[in-house]
């Protein structure tokens, strides 16, 4: 803005004097010159005039003149409104010859107008291009040299007059100029970007090509121990320091080593991991964790995970409660994946709710980790985050941890109803018959969803008391869907009670449900 302002002022300085000078030089400002100018123009659109005579009596010849048509007023005579200024000169000669007192009065669109207003009106017409000025064909009557001497000399004045005074033309020219300037700028910008992109792509190809030989040689010609014992000079023999100092080369190296690590197995994986550290690319990955951009941090976490950088785990742990979904998901996955002794407290302390996608991802890793490591799942039950607690109950179910049923039993009474539903499903899946009292308690709850979950669990784990409660629920229930669920559970739990519930009740709805349950063709519908 500060840069534009001076240019704007310069623009005004050019523009304003040009307009004023143009007017003053085309139309004379004095009344006689102005009148003479109008006489040359003969007619100007919207402009007319009349003569006012301050005499009580004029000659009969003048009074009866059919051209000027004078009429008598209280103060003298006035002519008709005349638009042809050529007539003014002739009349004025007669008035001067008769020594009459007269005054020339202008009208703009039949409205009385002063000399200044008339001048401004005419100047506007000319400026806007609505009127084409006529010039005296006979040329100036004065000596041309003496006329020229009146005009002050200034270089390029004509250019200034014609170009800068026409502000519309000047504006359009300016817009077109800026348009071309911006277009040119954009073209140059695109060319520069394209050249940069091409250069980068060529460099990438070149780097990809030149890392093949050293990588291949190292992987096939060196043993793992030899790679681990390589010193800096040996490393530089394969990967020159001049190239290693370039970030693009390092990026290519990281990408290719990680890519190979994914596609290869056995000793080659170990060699690649060792090489990754020898080239100090692990520091590169660690540095990414300090980046402000979340995608770079995630990239660093992925690299740590892929290359098993166990020493980075304390740093990774800091990201388990990150506000960014991708960062914390990746950080948790790494801790589950790489920790020797998985302490799930970092998961317990997560404050953000975990999505189903995250649960699926963690479950995959935990299922794998649980085969090799002792996982203290019960710490998840102590979480302040209900989604973590629910995930803990699911893990008990998914991993078949019967040993944790007792822990669940001790907390089940005091948890939220949503969690009770998850615990009931876990009991049901694991066949926890000893928890039937809790199931019956949930059957009495006011929450229909909890009732339904308890009914489902009761169908597998229930006792006679459960059957009685279900019997009562069927009688009092009004929803068709809920009745269907209760009756199905009762059918699975106690056939006699089911028959009793369907016989005692003559409701058409109940009979339809009964037919549906008993029809083997509809068992899975």
């Amino acid at each position: 803005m500060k840069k534009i302002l001076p240019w704007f002022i310069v623009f005004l300085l050019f523009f304003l004097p040009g307009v004023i000078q143009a007017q003053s030089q085309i139309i004379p400002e004095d009344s006689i010159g102005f009148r003479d100018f109008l006489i040359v123009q003969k007619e100007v659109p919207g402009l007319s005039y009349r003569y006012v005579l301050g005499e009580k009596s004029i000659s009969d010849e003048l009074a009866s003149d059919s051209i000027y048509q004078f009429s008598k007023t209280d103060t003298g005579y006035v002519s008709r409104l005349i638009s042809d200024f050529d007539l003014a000169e002739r009349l004025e000669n007669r008035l001067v010859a008769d020594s009459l007192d007269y005054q020339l009065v202008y009208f703009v669109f039949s409205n009385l107008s002063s000399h200044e207003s008339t001048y401004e009106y005419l100047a506007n017409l000319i400026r806007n291009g609505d009127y084409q000025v006529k010039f005296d064909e006979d040329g100036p009557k004065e000596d041309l040299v003496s006329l020229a001497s009146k005009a002050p000399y200034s270089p390029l004045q004509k250019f200034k007059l014609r170009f800068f005074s026409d502000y519309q033309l000047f504006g359009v020219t300016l817009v077109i100029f800026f348009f071309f300037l911006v277009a040119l700028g954009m073209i140059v910008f695109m060319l520069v970007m394209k050249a940069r992109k091409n250069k980068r792509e060529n460099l990438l190809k070149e780097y990809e090509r030149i890392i093949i030989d050293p990588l291949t040689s190292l992987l096939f010609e060196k043993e793992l121990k030899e790679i681990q014992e390589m010193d800096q000079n040996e490393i530089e023999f394969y990967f020159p320091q001049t190239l290693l100092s370039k970030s693009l080369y390092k990026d290519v190296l990281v990408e290719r080593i990680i890519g190979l690590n994914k596609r290869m197995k056995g000793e080659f994986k170990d060699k690649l991991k060792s090489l990754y550290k020898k080239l100090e690319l692990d520091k590169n990955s660690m540095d990414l964790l300090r980046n402000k951009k979340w995608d770079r941090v995630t990239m660093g976490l992925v690299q740590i995970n892929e290359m098993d950088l166990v020493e980075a785990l304390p740093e990774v742990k800091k990201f388990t409660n990150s506000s960014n979904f991708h960062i914390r998901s990746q950080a948790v996955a790494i801790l589950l994946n790489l920790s020797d002794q998985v302490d799930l407290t970092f998961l317990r302390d997560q404050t953000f709710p975990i999505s189903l996608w995250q649960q699926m991802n963690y479950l995959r890793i935990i299922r794998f980790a649980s085969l090799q490591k002792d996982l203290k799942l019960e710490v998840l039950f102590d979480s302040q985050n209900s989604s973590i607690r629910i995930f803990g109950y699911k893990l008990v179910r998914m991993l078949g941890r019967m040993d944790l049923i007792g822990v669940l039993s001790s907390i089940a009474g005091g948890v939220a109803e949503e969690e009770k539903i998850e615990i009931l499903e876990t009991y049901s899946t694991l066949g926890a018959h000893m928890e039937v009292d809790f199931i019956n308690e949930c059957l009495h709850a006011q929450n229909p969803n909890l009732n339904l979950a308890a009914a489902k669990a009761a169908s597998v784990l229930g006792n006679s008391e459960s059957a009685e409660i279900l019997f009562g629920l069927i009688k009092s229930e009004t929803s068709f869907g809920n009745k269907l669920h209760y009756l199905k559970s009762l059918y699975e739990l106690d056939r006699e009670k089911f028959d009793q519930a369907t016989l005692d009740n003559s409701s058409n709805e109940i009979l339809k449900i009964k037919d549906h349950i008993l029809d083997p063709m509809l068992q899975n519908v």
Partner: protein
Amino acid sequence: MKRILIIEDDLLISSLVQFRLKKDGYETFLVSDGNEGIKAIDALVPDLIITDVMMPFRSGIEIIHHARQSQPDIPIIVLSSLGEEEQVVLEAFNLGVADFIPKPFNPNELAIRVKRILK
């Protein structure tokens, strides 16, 4: 000297395989896409083809189809990261490939399989 054609779009992987097989004394040829692979099969008539499945222009399955029609006796080893996709593995074996090696793989193991097939 036995001639082996390697059709693989990942230059680093193909170079590693080439390096390992050269160590065993094979003559190797690299191509990086399906179209080039088909041309190379007809032009070189190799003793063995090692091909990836997912490649530009033509897939590995199309290459196997072509090889079975034009050079039915050439053994083919499929080297692919689609090893867990049963459909791809079954299709490859139905077309008569000699072996299917899923990625991640061990180049030494590949070399042993190549040696067994070309024996």
